[in-house]
């Protein structure tokens, strides 16, 4: 199931990452290497720093110590154009979708490629329609976000992120805000992305999904990577008591 190319340079390389909110240290020294094509699920209790870690990778959160490189480039907050270049490489899907309410679905997807990559209107429209078809929403091109269900909105959000052709996709609890019956349609799209070789980092509570789709699972506890391994090993044979406790609390 692994599409990871173990001999390519790391897609994301993190060493010694520390981040505090004021006096509260949320990430206490993260070391992590993500290979291109790897699918990583990040699990843990709320407050363990999972989302914060994800948001550091595309620069939505700044960190105080350590080093973070994406596609070989180290993060540099002082350089806005470097940050924008980073965000063309790394896409993000949010728990609350964050679609632009005043734009149609099609325009939501086309906005960034048109402005940032300066593609022509026809190019962006063609790509938008392709991506919408890919996530199963071809007929919703002219609809507005408030006319769509949660699951549909999240799939549009995925299409919107994909329109920038990122190499890495960050998924921050993307099904947590969805009604249970809508979760499946979104996970199906993510699974197909994984199969195509997209590098994925997902913070998720969907353990079955993580088990099925990911190459590696990372359990975070109190701001550190507490345990990690392949899903089969991690879920059936948790080594540390904290992970054992976490997994049992889910049943």
């Amino acid at each position, binding site marked *: 199931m692994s599409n990871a190319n173990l001999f390519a340079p790391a897609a994301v390389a993190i060493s010694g990452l520390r981040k505090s909110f004021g006096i509260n240290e949320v990430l206490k020294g993260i070391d992590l290497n993500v290979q291109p094509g790897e699918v990583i699920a990040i699990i843990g209790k709320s407050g363990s720093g999972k989302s914060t870690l994800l948001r550091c990778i595309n620069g*939505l959160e700044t960190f105080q110590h350590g080093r973070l490189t994406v596609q070989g480039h180290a993060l540099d907050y002082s350089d806005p154009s470097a940050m924008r270049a980073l965000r063309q490489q790394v896409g993000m899907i949010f728990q609350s979708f964050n679609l632009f309410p005043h734009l149609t679905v099609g325009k939501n997807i086309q906005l960034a490629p048109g402005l940032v990559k300066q593609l022509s209107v026809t190019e962006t429209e063609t790509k938008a329609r392709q991506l919408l078809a890919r996530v199963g929403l071809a007929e919703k091109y002219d609809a507005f976000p408030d006319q769509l269900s949660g699951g549909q909105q999240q799939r549009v959000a995925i299409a919107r992120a994909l329109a920038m052709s990122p190499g890495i996709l960050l998924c921050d609890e993307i099904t947590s805000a969805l009604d249970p019956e809508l979760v499946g349609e979104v996970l199906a799209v993510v699974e197909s992305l994984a199969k195509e070789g997209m590098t994925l980092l997902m913070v998720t509570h969907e353990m079955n999904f993580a088990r099925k789709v990911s190459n590696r699972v990372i359990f975070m506890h109190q701001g550190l990577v507490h345990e990690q391994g392949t899903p089969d090993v991690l879920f059936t044979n948790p080594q540390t008591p904290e992970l054992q406790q976490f997994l049992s609390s889910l049943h």
Partner: protein
Amino acid sequence: MAIELDFAAVLTEWPLLVKGVAWTLGLTAVSAVLGVLLGIGCAWVRTQGASWCRPGVAAYVELIRNTPFIVQLFFLFFGLPAMGVRLSPEWSSVLAMVINLGAYSAEIVRAGIQSTPSGQIEAAMSLALTRMQTFIWVILPPALQRVWPALVSQIIIVMLGSAVCGQISTEELSYAANLIQSRNFRAFEAFIVATAIYLTLSIATRASLDWLGQRFLFGGRRG
């Protein structure tokens, strides 16, 4: 004692009234567009722009909001010539109205911008949009939509305030009413008619601007 009111004497002067209405609407239209644009610019400076500009913009906004419009108008029309800048009554009126509306719009639009959900900005950032692109395409349209009723109210206020411009001989509606009553001495009737016209204008303008906002300005539909 019978009160004799002669409205006919006023209504026969309808060409003057029409001209007055045209001027009032014209002044309002120009000031509305330029004033709101100025307000958006000021709001941008205060929320996103260079911090060295901000005290200046804040001072401008507070000065205009805490002084009467008539004083602002008189300052431009009577005061500036002493400094060598001589403006016609019409240009003074437009300038005063733009400066006035700009200050109030700045506050209104700023409130709209500051009520943008943070998720919208994060999504735009994650899509690699620049700050200016985010402001124009993601922040501003929904912000304007949220504050549109307040902006329309402010435009109406400026339109009604333009009545004062007749005092410096701008030929808008109140000037027309004054002219009529100076001819036929029917002051009360003239001003009743003018007031009724103003009332109609304010209702009609509000309805039109509300419709315009829905239709054209926001790139999308909103309930």
